């Protein structure tokens, strides 16, 4: 089937993401121009593959956005590594320098949604796991003892071969129902999902409130905020 053109909408809305807006608007415009230039009726055009947008057209649309200075955000490390010129650098751990201190004098460096409750809170060494190279290193040499893996990946594949060897996990994405949440529950590896981190230093000793009740995935905003488990930095390891 070919394509026919001219998106019409009585009740439109602008997309929330600039990249979807840019791509879809460019595609609609190009498709309409091509159809108008063809001189064909819709019925003639609809099965005419010569009128279709091609890979080269989409490459031009991508190039057009990049030419404005726009750079894409990468999720997978391979995406950035293969085309760094098109992407923003991968984000590192955030540090606003303005962390709260609790009544016991501990720096609060994050919080998250607990996947399941453990008998007591846990302490360990926070180690940021965000690259294939790091996983390969630990797959070869073993995961260091006491590792609480800080992962910015709610999937279950990056750390798949070593997941069961972590003492615990803090994941800066997803929900308690994400793949990593499911897997850590299966492994009985304590885990916070949807964690926000601020000032957590790679290699520092931390305590995490894994003993809090499992987070309710259906909680409203107020309850969701109240059920967060905190992460405390206890010092450098």
């Amino acid at each position: 089937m070919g394509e026919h053109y001219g998106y019409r909408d009585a009740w439109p809305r602008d997309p929330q993401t600039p990249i979807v807006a840019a791509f879809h608007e460019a595609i609609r415009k190009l498709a309409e121009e091509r159809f108008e230039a063809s001189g064909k009726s819709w019925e003639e055009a609809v099965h005419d593959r010569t009128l279709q947008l091609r890979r080269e057209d989409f490459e031009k649309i991508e190039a057009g956005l990049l030419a404005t200075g726009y750079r894409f955000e990468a999720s997978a490390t391979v995406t950035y590594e293969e085309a760094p010129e098109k992407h923003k650098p991968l984000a590192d751990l955030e540090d606003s320098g303005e962390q709260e201190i609790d009544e016991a004098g501990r720096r609060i460096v994050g919080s998250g949604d607990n996947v399941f409750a453990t008998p007591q809170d846990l302490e360990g060494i926070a180690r940021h796991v965000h690259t294939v190279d790091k996983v390969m290193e630990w797959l070869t040499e073993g995961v260091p003892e006491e590792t609480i893996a800080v992962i910015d990946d709610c999937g279950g594949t990056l750390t798949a071969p070593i997941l069961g060897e972590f003492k615990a996990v803090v994941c800066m994405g997803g929900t308690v129902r994400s793949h990593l949440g499911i897997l850590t529950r299966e492994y009985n590896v304590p885990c916070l999902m949807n964690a926000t981190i601020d000032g957590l230093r790679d290699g520092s000793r931390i305590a995490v409130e894994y003993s809090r009740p499992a987070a309710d995935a259906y909680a409203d905003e107020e309850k969701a905020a109240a059920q967060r488990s905190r992460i405390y930095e206890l010092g450098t390891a």
Partner: protein
Amino acid sequence: MPADHTYQALLRANQLQRRFSESWVWGLRTRTVQESKLYPVSAYIAGSYLNAFYRWPELLRRVGERISPEDIGERARQGGIAVNTLMAGMLVQFYTGGRQILIDMGLIRPSDAVDDVVYVYDFVERLLAAYHRNNHHNLPIDCNMKNQIHSARETERLESEALGVAPGDRLHTAFSSFLPAASTYGFLAQCECRLGFFNHGPYRTPDGNQMLVRDLLSIGEGDLPWMDGIAAGIPYANLTATVIMKDTDFYIVDDFGSFEAAPAYDNDNLVAVGLYTSDFLTDGYVPVHMDNADDLADHLEELTEKLHTATSETWQMMAGWTRTQMLEAGLLVYSGVGRELAHLAGVYEQEDWWEVDDQARRFYPLLNDEYGNGLIWEMVDQLSLTSQQWSPHHIERFRDGRPEMWTPIPYSVLADEEWTATVGPMSTGGTDLPPKTGLWQTSEGKLGLEEANRRAREFEPPSWKHRFYDEDVFAKHHPGDPRLTA
């Protein structure tokens, strides 16, 4: 010329579409965009939507020419194969997702491919009706998130064969190690897709416990071309683990086959377990080393070790892939969700399911991670694409907003609205992934594709002639009837 469909057919198609879209709105509200540092997940999901739109109508018609959706559903409900509520839902959702992307891009209109849309929806509705026929719902969301498939006959069998366990005993320990190993392997082998797992139930046991049936799918050498060799030591296409738990209420077993329990799933509450295999050549479940607890524990320990090794090898292989290979692998796993249908029909061809259609491949330059994340988030989480906005008067079921996930077929095609019947025949396809060279693991050993298809076409399960007795109404009113246990 008006579309060659009845008003009734379009009403039915649009109602089914809405039920499925609401299923996803509910199911996805507790999930976020699935990002991974290894895989460009959302980008490949977007690609799989497009591939589904261009390929599935023809592939499903090929299946439908050999086996009816009702017969597929009937076969599927007797065992643990990759035909289930999750798979059927994805047939609707991914296909319709591709349609919605193209509508939003202005490349097609809601009045396009009407025959295809009606065919795909009709196929899925009929399959699900048979699959869930003992329960008489099509989706868990229709019945308070219970996903009961089996009749009392099957449930009683699984309960009676389960082997008792207690924390600390060997089988309990082996089983508790096996499931996470299998889950990790499943997520990885299927490139972060969740199609390797499916749970159904719960089923109440006479002593007040609950049984969950947990399928582990496509674990041996088979369709996934990259698992040739790596999965060679895993002698099953699929496994099904039955778990009976005390003091545990599986209060949600949803349309994705995910469950939630109160208190949370805890291996300490396991009281009995079972293990089975099934595939397109079995007559339902075949017990796996179920003679006694030690035998099963031995086997689970051996399997767990093999799964760990295979996971490690798979990961190291995938870590060396290019982004295009990762994109295509995930894309093809999801757009290959219907491939078990082709196996059951005996019409499976590797290139049908493991090549990306050229019509979908042309979109690759757009499928960067950010666009993938943005598009999927907008389309199935926020419902914020302009094509998803309804009138200001409209109120959506769960969120009171005006958007709906999918665009129905307009009834104006029954009058004078311009329309098209189909996306047309599949285009050629391609992939950067390594080709399939190995055999297919089945319950009848490792088979070449031609032989597997031949056996599938000729296979009729011995219990097939008694299939209409396998339901609770007959069982209730015919106690002791030998046809119940035939």
